[in-house]
């Protein structure tokens, strides 16, 4: 049995201790927002927060995560997509296929918590996740939008949303 604190809830489940956290989240807890991309901690699609630290869950054995460690997945970042990073992502229409975006959002949220006004070099260094569709430039712009308190002007994108707003 393993005991994990995920998105504010303590969950008990049966799993081999060497199972990566990613697969425990996806297969034991049904939290499929965290994705499998490479299994070797290179692509970042599996990024979650453990005590606020962005962690590639595909190589992190469940046995090394304590019950007191606070795990946050994309499902727990906000109840309704209202985290500033998620809002900026939506305002700039960042995702294309979207498969990497849970990891991207989690990595960006951790970066912005550590550095509320990251430089381009900070972004390059922290955002090493892989996106094959090529959303990098909108990701960079969205991170800057968050750093500027949600002001989307710097992105200069002009996107019309169905609620009548324009980014």
């Amino acid at each position, binding site marked *: 049995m393993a005991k994990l604190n995920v998105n504010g809830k303590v969950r008990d489940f049966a799993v081999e201790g060497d199972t990566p956290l990613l697969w425990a989240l996806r297969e034991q807890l049904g939290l499929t927002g*965290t994705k499998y991309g490479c299994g070797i901690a290179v692509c970042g699609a599996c990024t979650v927060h453990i005590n606020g630290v962005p962690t590639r869950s595909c190589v992190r054995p469940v046995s090394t995560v304590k019950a007191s460690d606070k795990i946050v997945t994309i499902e727990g970042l906000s109840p309704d997509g209202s985290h500033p990073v998620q809002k900026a992502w939506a305002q700039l229409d*960042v995702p294309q296929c*979207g498969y990497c975006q849970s990891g991207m959002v989690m990595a960006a949220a951790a970066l912005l918590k550590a550095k509320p006004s990251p430089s381009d070099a900070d972004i390059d260094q922290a955002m090493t996740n892989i996106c094959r*569709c090529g959303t*990098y430039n909108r990701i960079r712009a969205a991170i800057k939008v968050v750093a500027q308190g949600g002001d989307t002007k710097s992105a200069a994108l002009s996107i019309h949303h*169905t609620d009548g707003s324009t980014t």
Partner: protein
Amino acid sequence: MIATNKISVSRRGFLAVGASAGLVVGFHIPFAGDASAQTAVIPEINAWVVVRPDDTVVIRIARSEMGQGTLTGLAQLVAEELECNWAKVTTEYPTPGQNLARNRAWGNFSTGGSRGIRESHDYVRKGGATARMMLVQAAADDWKVPAAECRAANSVITHAPSGRTTTYGKVAAEAARLTPPAQVTLKDPKDWKLVGKRLARLDTIEKVTGKQIYGADLTMPGMLNAAIKDCPVFGGKVKSFNAAAIEKRPGIKKVLRVGDSAVAVVADTWWRAKTALDALSIEWDNGPNVVNSSASVAQMLKAGLDATDAVVGNQNGDAKTALAAAVRRIEAVYSYPHQNHATMEPMNATARWTPERCEVWTPTQNGEAALAAAAEAAGLPPAKCEVYKIHLGGGYGRRGAVHDWVRQAVDIAKQMPGIPVKLLWSREEDMLHGRYHPVTQCKLQAGLDAQGNITALHMRISGQSILAGVFPQNIRNGLDPVQFQGLNAEGPEASIGYSFPNLLIDHAMRNPSVPPGFWRGVNLNQNAIYLESFLDEIASATQQDPLALRRKLMVSHPKHLAVLNAVAERVKWDVPPPDVGGQKVYRGLAQTMGFGSYVAACAEVSVSNDGLLKIHRIVAATDPGYAVNPQQIEAQVEGSFAYGLSAALFGECTQKDGRMEQDNFNTYPVVQMLHMPAVETVIVASGGFWGGVGEPTIAVAAPAVLNAIFAATGKRIRDLPLKNQSLKRA
């Protein structure tokens, strides 16, 4: 009516199609005879449009959404003619089985070749216009007034003379009973209100909250999980494996052979299946291809550069004679390697087989091809099979033509009747069993006169044909027409943008054992590198400005020239770029045409003394004729550079002992945030035609950068990827 419909995928996840208004059933996965299908049914207006009583408009989308935004763009086209309230639009996929049963009411499902909009704009708009006319007619009938006196806008129908109004939702049931009009007139583009607008995508929220369900995420009651290993040597077979060694591991349900070349482990969880499979020793019969390597392939292609068995793709004049007579000749040989699509979501499919029926849930770029593959593997007629399309975690051509993973999933399910089994490839499996970007070499020879004018050009392409590997029935007299993308004489698809007095472009087909596939951008990728780099070589050799030389050759190709000029104007080609960080910045140009659109790019790079390349900015222009959603075109252009630069900088799958050497992102690196240049997109929508946007720009990424590198260093890179090349100054 689609009363028998089980599911479709919308931006909200799974919906019961035709169910009563607002009945979102979350992540419900239906099975045959599912009780939820008994819910109240809303009639469709036509194949493309369902209107619910609350005025929600469901627009059916036949093409697959894989990030390119086609779901939104196609919905815009339908909604434009439908005159509905965009804020109440939602989308769903019809299934390939329904398409089959309804005499292909939705046309082609294939989502490749940047075809989503350009191939279906006419009939989807007619679908919207027809539905609007039926809704208006229903209101007019109700009011007993001529339909010509009624107008529709924003899902509201108004009878101007009396001032009466009603909404689409109120008349939808009546409209559904009417006979569709025989004649529909589409709007003049100048009257478009939604098409051409920078609308937000319809599928964004789910993707930033983790709620979007991909094929890899599917779960259903009683489902088991499968991991698979196919013989790593192409064409090899399974000789033996010791199932007993892993059968006792926790959760393992079955160890089985899949076809004659693969072994799968089925378990309660995928992780248990995968780790058990890793622990299984499998003896392979590698077959004859084990002797193949990248070096042997290169040798075979090299021989094709001067072979006599070439087929002609484009010619005018007499290039060989003119070359022989030229005052000066320039020659160069280029090459392009195998590359994997490397979609972020590895291949996967969930299948459930019984002797009576086979169902497959899978991310696919072509639902109909997936259905055909499933039916064949199931040993059942297509009418007894169904494919449910699930949102794709990347496609780029891998999930379109060959549904090898679907066949495997059905083969596994067939060995476990009645049980849904989800087959998910590991990244390693995905890398070792791709349908790779074809490998080619190209010898280019130019003849010049005394003034440095080009009198003749011969391009000899030697190498792999995609069609020969994927659709051999489409090879005509040894000719693969797709081979000459961007080099064709004329036509709306992929024509060359230059005129030469004497031209010969031919292809010596050389097919190695590595299976080829349509890889985003397809053959335009290498063809543009070859021609655009070589033109730069000629410009340099004749001391001409690369832009001026191109302009001279492009006089008869105004649309090609217009996008090149748009780029030159935006970068101010005549003004040298400012230094960045103390480094001098150099420019390179490229242009091409493919997938019905004209594209050009200018890359600005610097190369340090140590040979470190930095791509600072790319300015790109694209003319897709009509620009349906400019902000998504910009997203596709940016994405094309990420994909194209990944190929140029890092993309290479090398073969050793008959198998690929790269098996994950550590050995197959791709562009990350730190490599990505700023991209400025200039949309030159000249109107009058419909071109694709997902692919063409990829082809100009590499040559623009290669030409800029030459400007910076004097080094002409003729073999990709760049990671194998030193840019250090001599």
